[in-house]
């Protein structure tokens, strides 16, 4: 493949990953890494480095919007980012030593799990009781947001903060290890463990993804795993795709359209697992 053809193919693939990622509510990163390695034969470490960069780019844009609309809770985000950043730096350092096959296996499992979480997200409901977690009270992990669909202000407070912090640390570790945003895992901590409203969880996770990924990206950069020829078109493509995907999302109310993508992602996940287990040549 020629230089320019390679760049155009990378841009197009990343654009597609950005759209599908936004429509499914996953980040582009977790789709990108398998695509870049399996379709283009790009070295796994370069793919992870490029993915991390694209993750920061999309998160910055989305977080800027969510913060202005008051959906992202900056206190909850910063408080939990202490856990994700610690995990991310350790994960990023480990990803330089962990064998490629093991990384592929973990990535496949994380991808499969993310799809399950995404499917679960399709039913959205508000937490009903008001919890009294002492850490949440002390650190003001609470807020109010204007729910457009319900047409009223919704008050919320975090619950089970200790468990939330532990899950967040794990999400950070995976982010650094695999070069992904690990948004599905962050949302799991915010929504499922800490029982924050789904919209607040998604918006706050977006804000945290950029902070977490920039901590790991510094380690990747120092290792030489962020290659400008690969990372630049990938970041631009994913950003563009995510923007288009978000617009599409507003129109695609039908969940069956989203469900169409799920088998594709499962296929990607299984392929990565098979590579990790050495069942197919990587």
């Amino acid at each position, binding site marked *: 493949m020629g230089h320019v053809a390679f760049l155009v193919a990378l841009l197009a693939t990343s654009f597609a990953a950005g759209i599908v990622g936004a429509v499914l509510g996953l980040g582009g990163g977790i789709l990108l890494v398998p695509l870049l390695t399996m379709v283009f034969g790009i070295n796994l470490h370069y793919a992870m480095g490029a993915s991390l960069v694209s993750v920061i780019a999309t998160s*910055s844009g989305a*977080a800027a919007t969510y913060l202005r609309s008051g959906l992202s809770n900056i206190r909850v985000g910063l408080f939990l980012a202490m856990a994700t950043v610690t995990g991310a730096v350790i994960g990023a350092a480990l990803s330089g030593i962990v064998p490629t096959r093991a990384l592929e296996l973990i990535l496949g499992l994380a991808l499969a799990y993310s799809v399950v979480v995404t499917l679960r997200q399709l039913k959205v409901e508000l937490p009903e009781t008001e919890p009294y977690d002492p850490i949440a009270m002390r*650190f003001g992990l609470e807020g109010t947001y204007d729910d457009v669909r319900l047409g009223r202000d919704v008050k919320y407070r975090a619950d089970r903060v200790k468990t939330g912090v532990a899950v967040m640390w794990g999400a950070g570790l995976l982010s650094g290890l695999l070069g992904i945003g690990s948004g599905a895992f962050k949302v799991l901590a915010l929504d499922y463990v800490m029982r924050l409203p789904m919209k607040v969880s998604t918006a706050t996770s977006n804000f945290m993804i950029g902070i977490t990924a*920039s901590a790991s*990206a510094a380690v990747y*950069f*120092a290792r030489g795993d962020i290659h400008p*020829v690969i990372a630049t078109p990938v970041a*631009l493509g994913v950003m563009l795709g995510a923007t288009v995907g978000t617009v599409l999302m507003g129109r695609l109310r039908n969940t069956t359209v989203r469900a169409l993508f799920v088998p594709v992602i499962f296929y990607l996940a299984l392929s990565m697992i098979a590579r990790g287990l050495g069942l197919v040549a990587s």
Partner: protein
Amino acid sequence: VTAVERLVSRVLWWGGVASITLMLIGLAGYVVQVGIGGEGFDVPRGIEHREAGRPPNVFTSLPQVLDGLRRRPIDPLAVAAVGLLTLLATPVVAVVVAVPVFLAGGDRRYALIAALLAVALVGSLLIGGSG
């Protein structure tokens, strides 16, 4: 929406815009360079073997990037790398600027949390950038 949310939102937005602009300029320059027969990234070798794609194709530290910027003709990939580094620094700057705003609002607890995070992030960026 509080003052700190507005400011952090603005930093993230403009940091993103600045880095994308730089990446686009760098990438366009690279296309021109390889288009006129200049030496480009060895695709088949570099994508499979990490070691084959080492400098000058990959910038692993700020001094190397600066070196590429000083080269004449300027190395377009160095410009793209500045864009990448700007992007990496954007969330870090957002956390750093939150510290004084929290302090001004009388929220010392969150000023401290943001400061701790900022130290961790700036630290990893500095170690990464100078390594």
